[in-house]
């Protein structure tokens, strides 16, 4: 896979997320208060809740279903909960967001 342009940074709200639909399932693209951007499978490691719908703070998101907190950088639950969701490479260039979907299982 190569980098794919998925939209403008401005289309993702600060402290929020948008969904990119792929053949392999939804990917959530998050934007923090400092405009850092992260991408994870839109599936909480707990019960598959859509992380894109959660409240974002610092480099974290709280899953809307059962309030697990997932670290955006690695996609892993913050202790004492355990479990990770798949992460994807994402970058911003000239205000545009590029995604490199991970193909690893």
């Amino acid at each position, binding site marked *: 896979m190569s980098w794919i342009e*998925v939209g403008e940074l401005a*289309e993702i709200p600060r402290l929020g997320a*948008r969904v*990119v639909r792929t053949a392999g399932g939804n990917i959530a693209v998050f934007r*923090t208060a400092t405009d850092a951007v992260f991408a994870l499978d839109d599936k909480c490691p707990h019960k*598959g809740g859509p992380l894109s719908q959660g409240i974002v703070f610092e480099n974290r998101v*709280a899953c809307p279903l059962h309030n697990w907190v997932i670290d955006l950088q690695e996609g892993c639950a913050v202790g004492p909960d355990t479990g990770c969701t798949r992460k994807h490479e994402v970058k911003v260039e000239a205000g545009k967001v590029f995604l490199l979907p991970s193909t690893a299982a």
Partner: protein
Amino acid sequence: MREKLVLIGNGMAGVRTLEELLKLAPDAYDITVFGSEPYGNYNRILLSPVLAGEKTIDDIMLNDDAWYSSNGITLHKGKKVTKIDRRKRIVTTEDGTDASYDRLLLATGSNPFVIPVPGNNLPGVITFRDIYDVDRMLEASQNYKHAVVIGGGLLGLEAANGLKLRGMNVTVVHLMDTLMERQLDPVAGAMLKKSLEDRGLHFLMAHSTEAIVGDEHVKGVRFKGGLEIAADLVVMAVGIRPNTDLAKSAGLHCERGIVVNDTMQTYDPRIYSVGECVQHRGIAYGLVAPLFEQAKVCANHLAQLGYSRYEGSLTSTKLKVTGIDLFSAGDFIGDDSTEDIVLKDAARGVYKKIVLKDNKIHGAVMYGDTVDGAWYFQLMRDEIDVSDLRENLMFGQHHLGDSGHGQTNRVAAMEDSAEVCGCNGICKGDIVKAIIGKKLFTLEEVRAHTKASSSCGSCTGLVEQLLAHTLGGDYSQTPKKKSMCGCTEFTHDEVREGIRVNRLKTMQTARDFFQWKNPDGCQSCRPALNYYLLSTWPSEYVDDAQSRFINERAHANIQKDGTYSVIPRIWGGETNPAELRAIADVAEKYEVPTVKITGGQRIDLLGVKKEDLPKMWADLSRAGFVSGHAYGKALRTVKTCVGKTWCRFGTQDSTTLGIKLEKLTWGSWTPHKFKMAASGCPRNCAEATIKDFGVVCVDSGYELHVGGNGGVKVRATDLLCKVETEEEVLEYCAAFMQLYREEGRYLERTAPYLERVGLSYVKQKIVEDPSGRKILAERFYESQKYAQVDPWKQHAEAEDQGEFVPLSKIG
């Protein structure tokens, strides 16, 4: 170069301070610890169960050697510091080991008091303080027969019980004529004595020790008046004294303990102190909960954050003797200015006494049934006016309306397989295992590790009891002042008041003003702040969508598979064929898999894809529907019965009244969900007496009920008053909602709000003060001007569908 921190005293308070410090500033110091005992840090309060054979030393170790090394801490075990040179900032041990410091933490704990009588240094005379003492008691129990415990307080009785279980013949000697007289009144003390006697302990009350008798080894104890009894082992458990020797020798100001200020700093600014050796505002504490609070504050200042203060603790007591339940807190004796409520049932072995002063709980002592101890303690700490609870106070919290959880309360008797947390399926055994295995001390820790009590919260009381039961009582209870979340030290009330008084009108200014620790806040405080700003500045505040929980942001309820449910508003639950047809059309058009009638008399369309929501709303909007707000901390529904229009029993037109109420209040945001109902007669088919605001029509007018809810903890309403006209119903409703909107804490429903402020207070505001009521109602009407905009229509008409559609589709 990093600064050097030296801790003297490798016990619970000192090491807890290090743990808190490492959380806040892991790399701030090079840390060195001196401990006089040859062990790591262990849980001293669990020595009694070790003595009794219920736990092992391994069970009670808190930090092993690996913990120190993995945190880069130098530990000197078995080394006693004998000198502090404050000028050179060096501490030195008996054997000449020294360490220099930039900051020093003294946690030298306390020493058991040895009564000054002849023979008190004979072999066989010991105290009860550490693992060494326990080992000697265990040794004695294998070789000797007669044990005498001097001191009928908490520690003495625990020692006596343990020795008895180890097979010794035990006599407890007490100077006073009531056991544990600092924690129990004479009635409870006598009941305790009786049950300990039933277990085979002997007591000598009101006896003063004159001498310990023996030559090579203790042989007996002699009392004033001449009585002498045989003893092979004498345990002195008459109290503890803060260990201030080292501090005094270093010239630090000490009274009973080492004197510290609210930041746990001693008179030498480089030296801090925590634990049993400390005297804070004149009080030296000997229980774990206050010491942990001190540790937290001290760590904050060692990490140079500087915003935390220790303001003293209220403490409660439980005895760690299996099978004996007693609890006391505060002043339970009382005086001329107090009143008592007493319940005594000798056959059941139950005694409870609550001391009230100015309608607040001043103290409580309980024996046999201590289930509500935590509740009384909380009412006491929060200084709640209990006049409205008074008639049921003695019977406990579940008598205020608990849907069955209250009866399963006796945690000690519960099977390990009994489910405690019904939401997450957590059993008693899981929780106890986590408390012991993961060394948990607080409710928050149990929630994080087991999930118990972290969902609906109805089992919180049970989990707290399990903590108390497992740890033996003085576990860390929720601090008196409960901060909004980990982002701030301020409480909900302080933040809201600050927003109003200082005219803070955006999220950012509010978080800056209160110096939020995390710049973004967190998932817990952001929705609360958003609500406080919105309810305080209805015309000015710009709602922050990213601080709304998804249901309120998407104006629909998220389901477990990530789809949403849509509930259109049906005023008062009365509909017609055209509306039903429109809903049916929408359901078919968007292939809604499930259509369901809700408990609040509305129609729920379940399983809707997020991107279909705006289109569906557009269709519903064209048919005249607005959002039902079934997803929000907001006015939900007004449930009605058919009233006098059809019903042969109806006294008023409850359906029309319900529609009027719903038209008045829809769209308003509240601290938690807000439900209403209007019943046409006292048969109450609309179930108005379990609603936040309920109207029961009677022939002569309308009864207004407040503060009820169904759900986890059923609570029937309290009758607020009776009024004569519909106009009055509407005005009282608006005023009550506004009062709750302005004073309820975020996620606090009207039931706990009402119990917190008291029905009398609400009556005073709404019923007895007509002009105040009108002002409240006016503020509600004003706020509604900005709130009654249909969010569905807004979103459906918006050009940018924003988060409702994918950013893009690839692959």
